[in-house]
């Protein structure tokens, strides 16, 4: 049971090629094995980076030059990097601490909270939380953090906008009939008018292709892709938090 998991198996896992029983068994192991989780994370990052690298190929040179898309992402210097967590962000963020002294105050109460922002000073009033795994502790942590941030803002009389975006297996958090936190989400929804829930349409489509029925909790909206949503928000000056 605790034999070494081969790269091929992990590839099949992140590519959605394992059958349900294998997938579930491996998911349990990944939850209990940080090293394995790290390998999965690195693989996902690699996939994300590849997608990103070809999201906007140069415009075809001979025909239809006008079709070239005027780079919605073009102006975003770094938003993409949040996606390459395993490989890129750790490296990117290295040595970045000295620059953020001014911005630390709002986050002091959140040890271990990793935020990314394109602004010089991360905006504590516009936060985007991202969950991409069905690991119960991560889902729980996402909601805990969201509530702590929202409560803190409320205590301090700040108007906070928050979005919680789910993709990949993290979509479970927002799926009716599968979310372990449906009641809590409804409760949070009722308490905080500026809290929004976003599901990644690409992930939904993937689950549907796998033969699942996907129903979202009420009040969840969809975005074409999680990547696009995150990049857009970063460009708008939001602060991104990966839980």
């Amino acid at each position: 049971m605790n034999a070494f998991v081969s790269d091929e198996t992990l590839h099949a896992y992140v590519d959605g090629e394992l059958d349900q029983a294998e997938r579930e068994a491996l998911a349990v192991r990944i939850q209990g094995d940080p090293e394995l989780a790290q390998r999965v994370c690195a693989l996902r990052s690699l996939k994300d980076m590849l997608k990103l690298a070809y999201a906007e190929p140069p415009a075809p040179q001979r025909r239809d030059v006008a079709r070239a898309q005027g780079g919605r992402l073009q102006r975003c210097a770094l938003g993409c990097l949040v996606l390459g967590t395993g490989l890129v962000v750790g490296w990117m963020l290295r040595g970045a601490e000295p620059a953020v002294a001014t911005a630390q105050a709002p986050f002091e109460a959140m040890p271990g909270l990793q935020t990314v922002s394109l602004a010089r000073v991360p905006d504590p009033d516009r936060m985007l939380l991202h969950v991409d795994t069905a690991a119960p502790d991560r889902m729980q942590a996402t909601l805990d953090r969201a509530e702590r941030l929202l409560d803190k803002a409320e205590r301090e009389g700040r108007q906070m906008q928050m979005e919680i975006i789910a993709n990949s297996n993290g979509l479970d958090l927002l799926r009716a009939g599968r979310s372990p936190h449906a009641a809590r989400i409804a409760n949070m929804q009722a308490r905080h008018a500026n809290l929004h829930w976003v599901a990644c349409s690409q992930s939904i489509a993937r689950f549907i292709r796998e033969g699942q029925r996907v129903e979202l909790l009420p009040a969840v909206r969809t975005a074409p892709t999680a990547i696009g949503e995150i990049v857009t928000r970063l460009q708008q000056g939001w602060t991104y938090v990966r839980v």
Partner: protein
Amino acid sequence: MINRLFSGPLRQGIEAQRPLLYRLAYAWCHDAALADDLAQEALSKAWARRDQLRETAALKGWLVSIMNHCWIDHLRARRDFEDVDALHDTLASNADLPEVCCDREQLVACVRAAVATLPLAQRQVLTLVDLEEFGYAEVARILEIPVGTVMSRLSRARAALKLILERKMRQAERPPVLRRVK
């Protein structure tokens, strides 16, 4: 003329796949003009052979497999390769990777350059799985290779890519602009 040629549901359906084919072709050859040619050629051939398409659900895979043939034909013509397998192991690019991958454009350039160093066969499998999210079985059908080969090529491609990118990132010295708050 092209617009007149492609009208009606199937025509539109086929034409709608142009961006997908172009992106994939670009990821294979990293040459915008050639990628455009390949996509155009695949679309024209697909239209000419439209009666071979059994079900519209399989349209995407069918188009990509046609483009794969266009690509192989192109390589044969250009390089005069006798043996497609030998060709598949060829390294197509020795282009230097950008020095530092610390903003989006550089990261994109860095990943593309890393992909370009992969052998063609690995590059195709990798892009089909990661860019277009084809299942292993479908990639095997499109490229006409066994599923086991798909898996081993994918595995090698990702290992090589990871190595290249990690090495690149360790080399980077310029302090990143991104900020983290702990």
